């Protein structure tokens, strides 16, 4: 009963951490619906980096300086504030003050990528051929999946295009996203791959 009372007390505060005092959310732009880092509650794809933003909500104080620490770095490591999934499993991420006092903790999971998809920045999944006009740009975002579950984190996927392609695949500053620019009329196939998973889309450019 005493424990229940205590839980009722702490449940009054928001936050997915076990102690309901802090949150870990992905760093995504508001308008970026397809942001691959928007899924803090999903497992992180093995080999991917999840950039969390940590905040605490404690009565009577602004958020103290907080540090992240993984209980099992062989599963999920913390590297310069990023969570890096190393192998399948789970590890508690401790959210602590500078003196080591634990403010909260949250179990993070890591899972392998079994399927790769491509989506537009508005989150709409690309299912067929993309038709473009010369000079047009389309930004594509890879989605990492484990079965029916969307995985979190951004991975450095490999982008390739067919030879003599009428398009250019351009980096736009993010780890995983690419901008496709139509340069001339013609057809091409763009393939993205990460580990054993891959996906391909056809692009047709018209004058």
């Amino acid at each position, binding site marked *: 009963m*005493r*424990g229940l*009372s*205590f*839980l009722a*007390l*702490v449940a009054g*505060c928001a936050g997915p951490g*076990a*102690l309901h*005092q802090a949150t870990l959310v992905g760093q995504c732009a508001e308008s970026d619906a397809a942001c691959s880092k928007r899924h803090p509650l999903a497992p992180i794809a093995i080999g991917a980096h999840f950039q969390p933003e940590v905040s605490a909500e*404690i*009565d*009577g*104080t602004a958020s103290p300086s907080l540090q992240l620490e993984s*209980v*099992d770095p062989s*599963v999920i490591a913390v590297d310069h504030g990023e969570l890096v999934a190393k192998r399948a*499993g*789970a*590890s*508690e991420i*401790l959210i*602590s*003050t500078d003196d*080591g*006092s*634990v*403010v909260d*903790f949250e*179990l993070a999971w890591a899972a392998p990528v079994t399927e790769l998809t491509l989506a537009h920045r508005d989150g709409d999944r690309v299912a067929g051929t993309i038709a473009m006009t010369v000079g047009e740009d389309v930004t594509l975002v890879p989605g990492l999946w484990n079965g029916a579950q969307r995985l979190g984190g951004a991975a450095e996927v490999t982008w390739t295009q067919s030879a003599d392609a009428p398009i250019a695949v351009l980096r736009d500053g993010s780890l995983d996203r690419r901008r496709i620019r139509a340069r001339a009329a013609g057809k091409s196939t763009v393939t993205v791959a990460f580990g054993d998973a891959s996906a391909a889309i056809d692009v047709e450019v018209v004058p």
Partner: protein
Amino acid sequence: MRAAYLVVALAACNPELSQISVAPPGRAARLDEVHHSWHADTYRIEVSRGVALAIDCTAGGPCEHLHVVSDDPAIAEVRPASLGVLQSAGYTRQQPAAAVVVIGKAPGKTRLHLAAAEGHRDIDVTVVATP
């Protein structure tokens, strides 16, 4: 008989522990009280590797000067928890909660020694391997 009363009196002074975080799916994180006939009750914890378990300490109110040491931090590590909540201390008073976080580091068994102004407790910890 006098000795028995003394044992009961001493046991009553020792802090009580409660689990305040839940076990994640497919993982262990559980605190149990172990009753003894001849000495003060102890506690046992089963926690999976990579999992943390928060427990709070009370003795009529939140424990004062809570300090927990692990015999083998490579198996189970203990960190102080900083909780921004008050708990009842008697009928009229409230005091800051006192809690620690027990972390399963590697499969094995070890013992934690909890000391507070109100008394002490031993906690046997088993860290189990993950599937």
